[in-house]
């Protein structure tokens, strides 16, 4: 079991009196897309924040490639190959599209990067490839803040793509996309999975979940209520009742 790309054991987090995450166990199987599904406020984003070290858990542990990451700062966890997107994108707004992606893969916290010209060309090639796959090549010099909505969503994907990280945590990356962009997004994620990337996807649109996910973990009020194959989860009337019932209120 230790060779799972990412697993979470007995995770708990309270914010004041509010239990955001309660006794959550979650395994991401290598090379598939696992969807986190649940109504608003279920604790999905909080689980991402706990995994990436943005907030410390009250209890429980996170293992990346079998190694516990307790107490590690976010940038160390990121360098283990965990790349994430944010629900609110958090692009580097005043920087160009190209620099957004380039900045995402320059890790050395010194005045310049090691490796000289060869390493620099490799980074530039990675950026070009990521821009190409996300359809942003023509916008490389535009300011991130000036992009249209769908383009910003794809830029947040390009940053992740370029890192070469093998574990992706995607927080509602397709929300609000038009059908055409959504199809592009689905094929982007599919080809990443085909490349062996392990993905955890938070997504409210159950069509996208069905298209991409091999497994679903269903969360409500911080607890994992069920986990399994999409057909099993999405046909469970009780879960669907919670999902749509809670969303309407």
């Amino acid at each position, binding site marked *: 079991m230790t060779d799972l790309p990412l697993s979470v054991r007995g995770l708990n987090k309270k914010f004041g009196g509010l239990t955001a995450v309660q006794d959550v166990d979650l395994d991401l199987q290598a090379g598939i897309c696992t969807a986190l599904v649940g109504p608003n406020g279920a604790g999905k984003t909080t689980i991402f924040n706990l995994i990436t070290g*943005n907030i410390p858990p009250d209890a429980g542990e996170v293992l990346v490639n079998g190694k516990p990451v307790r107490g590690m700062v976010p940038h160390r966890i990121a360098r283990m190959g965990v790349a994430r997107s944010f629900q609110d994108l958090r692009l580097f707004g005043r920087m160009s599209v190209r620099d957004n992606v380039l900045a995402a893969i320059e890790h050395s*916290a010194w005045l310049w990067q090691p490796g000289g010209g060869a390493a620099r060309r490799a980074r530039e090639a990675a950026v070009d490839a990521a821009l190409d796959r996300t359809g942003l090549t023509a916008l490389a010099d535009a300011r991130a803040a000036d992009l249209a909505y769908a383009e910003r969503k794809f830029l947040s994907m390009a940053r992740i793509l370029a890192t070469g990280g093998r574990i992706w945590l995607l927080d509602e990356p397709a929300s609000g996309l038009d059908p055409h962009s959504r199809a592009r997004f689905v094929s982007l994620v599919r080809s990443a999975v085909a490349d062996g990337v392990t993905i955890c996807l938070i997504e409210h649109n159950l069509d996208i979940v069905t298209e991409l996910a091999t497994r679903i973990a269903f969360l409500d009020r911080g607890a994992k209520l069920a986990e399994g194959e999409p057909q099993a989860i999405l046909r469970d009337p009780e879960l669907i009742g919670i999902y749509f019932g809670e969303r309407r209120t």
Partner: protein
Amino acid sequence: MIAYLLNLATLATVFGILAASLNLLIGYAGIFSIAHAVFFGIGAYTGAQLAILFIPDVLLACLAGGVLAGALSLCLALPALRVRGEYFVAASLGLQMMAVTLFSEAHSLTGGHGGLVGIPMPTLFGIDISEPATFLVFCLLVLGGVLLAIRMLMRGSFGRALMAIRDSESAAEAFGKDVPRLKTLAVGLGCTLAGVAGALFAFYMAFVNVESFTLEQSILVMAMVIIGGTATLAGPLVGVLLLLLLPAALSFLPFIPPTQIGAVQQLIYGGAMTLLMIFRPAGLAGQSTGRR
């Protein structure tokens, strides 16, 4: 008239270095320090003491002033690592206030309120460069070097990392940026350069006292950077020229009584900053992106 212009040009050059160094913090790293005059002061006192006690070599003074200001910049880096935005502004204000008190009370180091007088004429490797034109050329060379270094660093990965942190600290972390270290580096570099400017300032004035390192000075430098345009190379220089030439120009206007120049100046600065932030938030030299 020539002497006056040389004088003004030298002052503008020294402030150009100072504003460019603050731009590193404000414009690139998003660290809104209003304690920049403190490090300018540390550089000035260090350079002055070195010249008075040992040797008036201007290069040595710049090095010493820069190193000490850079080392003491940890006082600024610590709050910058823990808090952001308005909390950091308040923390740096505290540092500024503390430093002014120390500058005025630490007589043996700073000469107290009276300051340090009788700073010897600047030399460079034993050659006298006190001639105003010569000293100006030296200052311009330093400014050129500083701008070149900033340009190279900010166009490279260091600049991108700082700007990424400025635009979204949590995303920068999520993409592997060692934020505390990068911020400490930025603060250290910015304050080192402020110290260099301070050492030059000490020779330029031939005496230094706490009046030059107060909150007003910090705010003036910040105004230069913001009015000129943050995160651009030319911005701080434009700001310096504007804010230094303005008082000079005003003194030529016959209808403003000399005693009122200060007040008129303040009104113009204040008004310009407010209007600029509304209509051209990127500053005069910044790219105009319009309001969205």
